[in-house]
């Protein structure tokens, strides 16, 4: 099992004719993902590596089952693309696009929630169920992806796309492997937070532990800590906290759009304290994550 996607998931790519999207399409097909269509207005009738292109999302959803959409359109068109996918009945939307103003993100997320759709991202690398399928550029070429993501028992959630791959690679090397890895996105407002994805991992028999990457800014770690204290989770969670140097630099933005220290709750010190109080182990180095998980799993 895996969460969100498996080997049977079908999806389309919105913005498929863009340079990065063309590369991504090739990588996804090589990995065995079922890309059934692509949307770029005015490009109806073309194909990208054999994947048919049409003008609208409905052109695909009206004649086949489409489980998900990957949005890779420029920031000015991204919210529109998300709304089109939701309206067409797609229930899982991975938004890769960076720099979408947060009002538009919040509006799209609220509309998706009303329609029972889930958004992952924006500003993310996507989702991977190793050995089964992937949605988004996560891992790069199919070969590189197989190297970094060995199927296994740890669920990964990360505010950084790159660190999703780094941590998954460490887990794969240590023999633990990855059940599903989700690059949740680096923006201040994202479709799915750690705490919102936890119940899915909880329900997945393959997943036996969770590794997360977090950084300054926002209340997502506090929300996860609350979740762990509220529920009797069967899953041990190990977190890695980057950007500790930022605690002493309020008002400065580093890395992702959501990464800024404005108040005490934004600091890594505050987040670490909250997570530890909720029974989450916080690793000092990436290579400690597999070891800490192994210790917890052995108990």
């Amino acid at each position: 099992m895996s969460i969100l996607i498996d080997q049977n998931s079908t999806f389309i790519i919105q913005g498929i004719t863009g340079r990065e999207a063309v590369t991504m399409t090739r990588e996804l097909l090589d990995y065995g993902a079922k890309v059934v269509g692509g949307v770029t207005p005015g490009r109806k009738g073309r194909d990208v590596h054999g994947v048919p292109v049409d003008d609208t999302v409905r052109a695909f959803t009206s004649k086949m089952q489409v489980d998900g959409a990957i949005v890779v359109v420029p920031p000015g068109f991204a919210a529109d693309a998300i709304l089109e996918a939701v309206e067409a009945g797609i229930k899982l939307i991975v938004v890769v696009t960076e720099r979408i103003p947060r009002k538009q993100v919040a509006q799209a997320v609220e509309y998706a929630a009303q329609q029972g759709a889930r958004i992952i991202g924006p500003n993310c690398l996507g989702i991977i169920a190793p050995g089964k399928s992937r949605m988004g550029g996560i891992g790069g070429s199919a070969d590189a992806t197989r190297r970094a993501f060995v199927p296994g028992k740890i669920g990964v959630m990360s505010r950084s796309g790159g660190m999703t791959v780094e941590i998954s690679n460490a887990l794969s090397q240590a023999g633990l492997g990855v059940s599903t890895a989700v690059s949740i996105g680096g923006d201040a407002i994202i479709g799915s937070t750690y705490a919102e994805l936890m119940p899915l991992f909880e329900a997945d028999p393959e997943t036996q532990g969770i590794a997360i990457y977090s950084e300054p800014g926002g209340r997502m770690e506090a929300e996860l800590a609350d979740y762990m204290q509220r529920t009797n989770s069967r899953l041990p969670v190990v977190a890695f906290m980057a950007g500790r140097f930022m605690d002493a630099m309020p008002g400065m933005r580093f890395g992702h759009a959501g990464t800024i220290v404005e108040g005490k709750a934004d600091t890594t010190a505050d987040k670490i304290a909250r997570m530890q109080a909720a029974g989450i182990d916080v690793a000092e180095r990436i290579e400690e994550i597999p070891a800490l998980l192994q210790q917890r799993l052995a108990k």
Partner: protein
Amino acid sequence: MRFYEFEAKQVLGKVGVPMPKRTFAHTPEEAEAAAAEIGAAVVLKSQVLTGGRMKAGGVLFADTPAEAKTHAATILGLTINGQEPAGVLVEERRKVVQEYYAAVTWDGRAKQPVIVFSDMGGIDIEEVAETHPEHVSRTNFSSLRPFSDYTAKVAVSSTGVTGNDLAPLTRIVAALARVFLQYDLTLAEINPIGKLDDGTFIALDSHMDMEEEARGMQRALLKELAIPDEDTRQARPPTPFEIEGAKVDSADTRGVAGRVVEFDGDIGLVIGAGGGSLTLFDAVRGAGGSPANYCEIGGNPSVTKASALTRLVLSKPGVKKIAVMMNVVSNTRADMMARGVIKGCIEAGRVPADTIAIFRIPGSWEEEAVKLLQKYGVEYVDRTVSMHEAAARAVAKIGN
């Protein structure tokens, strides 16, 4: 991007929020004339993009135009948290009987805007929330529907405000929520809202931040406020080194190689990407190293861009060596990065083997990168060496 108080008040004025009579002055003479025009006691406030003005002596009171002139000269000559004032705001001084706090910001947990309101204004809201939680209300609202006033009423009334005070405070808070949505603000704050002895309310100070990504959509407002494109409004003004970094990044559209922030250390960093840079910066410091800069590379930048960034980092006085490190990459080509940093070293007149302390970019085209690095005698590590271990090895080399 942050607005000055006088700009934030201009925005509030557009939606009818009552405020004291005021004039933005650039010189002591203008301040004197403004005080004479107002014809009453005034308060003079330094216009800087930082808090702590009062403590720093950037807010002074004057009873006469002559006193206003003297105070304005003092304020205009005063640097606050490293910032020179853009001018001084001269405002009529009103007698206030009670202060309130109102703000609208984004709530990442609810994924909606939130109104934060308190009947204990004028002081640090985080402190009030901790010591008097019953005096602070938090009220989420939808950004999908047009804003409706009842939400503001709920926010105000939740702190116990009622009677004749409820309607005017509701109007101010509703106006604040509307400008927040309309102008893509990430923070719209009035602190304090003052209740005057005649029972009316006015906004005394305001802080607004606009979303960086929305600058393009808010051109009309920025033009109205006379804020030019090159005015970045960062927490501290960019250094020449950082401005050069931005130029490197915008030179071509492929990938990111920039977002440079300057530090005082001796180890130059060519690192990526968003989360990887934060992790590696911590790792270098954790190993006892002293970074000369922060930067971000990602999204498969061109060789030209990588070499330009390398040259820039090496141009900083005191940089002994550079460390080239990334997390396991998805779409950045390790060979292009290797070519870029080697080219950058050579163009800077440095020997790559002596200059690049370590190269760690596991991922696509790694084999080609290794061949090139070996040819130039640069130490290379693969994914079996962790980011923290790679950083420690780089720091150890600087010590020599």
